[in-house]
């Protein structure tokens, strides 16, 4: 069991910024700072002693929990609870409804889910795939100041060096979602496909959660959405690569069919 740093609870600093500006200033470049949104992912690590951070930034009062419509875009604060995303633009809404259970959803945040630990044992970033499918952008602060980037680029970087402020999603696309069933509310996602198309049915975007530690975009370079040849499919305690490989085209077909039907 690795420890991040040798720090007893008396020595841990807790910072509770009261505004977005305070949060950005307290985060700095992210060195030595551990961010906590709802706590649903981080608290078990603290309680068990697997993670012993020097400085924890609690974001619950930083005013990042608002949602604002801006034309055909919805700006969602990083601190928005997953429970408040259940009617978000599809497929984000459906994915949010499937996260954990009611209590978890009312504590967990969008930012926390986006930045979920990418270990093979902890595939918990279920909202990453719908955000990729929607073509969402992420505004974050950190070294070099604030910037906005597509969510796939954010995920390809190191989330611990960025403070997510808000996520922007389009409200004028159609979405669909299909997943392998989970035995119970707390089971991790084995495989779930999110898809969306523009208002005119073009610009198909597909993404998968559960294929690996982080969600991935699915469209092949040739634009063939069913092409999963390039997608690395995990082989783990939840499911084998063989099983995921069987299920991926099934889920993709369902999403495509739903997107056509809802036209």
């Amino acid at each position: 069991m690795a420890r991040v740093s040798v720090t007893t609870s008396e020595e841990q600093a807790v910072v509770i910024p009261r505004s977005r500006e305070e949060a950005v200033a307290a985060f700095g470049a992210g060195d030595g700072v551990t961010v906590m949104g709802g706590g649903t992912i981080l608290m078990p690590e603290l309680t068990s002693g697997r993670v012993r951070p020097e400085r924890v930034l609690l974001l619950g009062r930083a005013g990042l929990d608002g949602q604002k419509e801006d034309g055909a875009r919805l700006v969602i604060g990083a601190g928005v609870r997953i429970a408040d995303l259940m009617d978000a633009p599809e497929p984000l809404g459906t994915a949010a409804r499937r996260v954990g259970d009611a209590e978890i959803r009312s504590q967990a945040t969008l930012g926390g889910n986006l930045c979920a630990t990418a270990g093979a044992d902890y595939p918990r970033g279920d909202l990453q795939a719908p955000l990729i499918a929607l073509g969402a952008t992420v505004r974050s602060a950190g070294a070099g100041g604030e910037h906005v980037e597509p969510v796939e680029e954010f995920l390809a970087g190191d989330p611990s060096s960025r403070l997510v402020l808000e996520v922007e999603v389009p409200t004028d696309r159609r979405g669909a979602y299909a997943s392998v069933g989970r035995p119970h509310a707390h089971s991790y996602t084995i495989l779930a496909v999110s898809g969306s198309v523009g208002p005119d049915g073009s610009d198909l975007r597909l993404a998968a959660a559960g294929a690996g530690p982080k969600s991935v975009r699915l469209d092949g370079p040739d634009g063939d959405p069913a092409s999963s040849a390039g997608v690395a499919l995990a082989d783990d305690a939840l499911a084998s690569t063989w099983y995921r490989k069987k299920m991926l085209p099934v889920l993709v077909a369902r999403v495509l069919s739903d997107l056509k039907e809802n036209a």
Partner: protein
Amino acid sequence: MKAVGARLPRYDGVAHVTGRTTYVDDVRVHGMLWAKALRSPVHHAGIARFDTAKAEAAKGVHAVVTCKDVPKNVYGHLEALGIPADEPLLADGEVRWKGQPIALVAAESEEAAQAAVEAIEIDFDERPALFDIRTAGDPDAPKIHQWGNWYPHYEGGMDRRQIRKGDIERAFDQADTIVSGVYRPAAIEHCPLEPQTALVVPEPDGRLTIYSCTQALYFSMGVVAAHLECPLNKLKFVGGTVGGGFGGKVDTASETVTALLTMKSGRPVKWRWTREEEFLCSSTRAPWHMEISDAVTEDGWILGRKMLTLHDAGAYARFSPYGVTKHSFHHTGAYTIPNLHFDGYVVFTNRVPTTAMRGFGVTSVSFATELHVTRVAQVLGIDPFELRLRNANRIGDTSPNGISYTDPSTVPTILAIADAIGHELGAEYRTMSRDRRAGELLPEHLVDQVGSTEGH
């Protein structure tokens, strides 16, 4: 009889719904220390180097215990049933399963105890591990237990639980068909909501008060007294309030070590397992491997059964020999089979030792028997209800271990099920009963089966 059939309130109901039921973790004692365990990170290894000095010197630590602190480290919980001791309370020179406890620390906080555990210096010489019970007898299988790879201490020095009844070779000669199957139920984790927890309090008169979540207070008291080599009246067990056990809280898995920490520190000590420890290190229901071959006639009589059972006991015997014995007694299930050839082995592996869980030893063989009888029906093209009714236990039939049935419920139960789901039965089957066999229900091969067992 006033209580049977009446709706009586649970005596603990009001306490449960007001959050006042006191589980071990809810007991508050002044000056209590928290315990944490050093557990083996490997499946099978010798302990090459082991130094607890840094843990003993760590901040907030009041006691560290190892096998050296246990007056009687190896004690057989079922010695009274003839199962000799094989398992150390704390690992001594080697580890045989991942998660096996090696040392315990008592400190001012869980955090301090955990930090001290991580300060213990220990090196392992890893050894090959055995996980597949089917390979335990292979010439190149690693030898993982001082008794060999399976339990050798059944009566008469037998290395298996054996049942022989009637004439199995004749049954197989007379059969029209042999139907075979292999059944392999997996391990099951009890997963009680309450994790294993023990709290031990030193009393001024030298006794120990042990708050325990055990399902078996007197049994656990005996186990603790045996390990500590102390008289029973030194111990006061407080318990009976269990947050779920299902058979997984009879192993006395936490009380003894916690008592040692209390004795060494002079302070009350609580050891509360984490959920990870419950899932990874607590005993489970055993995995089984069962091979059944039934000699059957075209018209649906099961003349004889050959059965091989391999039971995965994990690293140590615990209650497994007893479980396999019960399993053997029930290996024909609800049906009467006059010719039997059963061998059951308690096989060791480098996995967490297995233990009792509801229906210990019997659920496995019920599962296998029911699936197998259905398979027989499918092979013969006979209705599975009718096949069952024909072979069902009746008054005067005998079990594999020679018990004569006085009131078996198989026939009425099957008829009730058929009725409930609207399954049509042939006329002769609809009128069957549990009465002693006679006429067509007593063919020649069943005539001598009453009282003809030679069980072991």
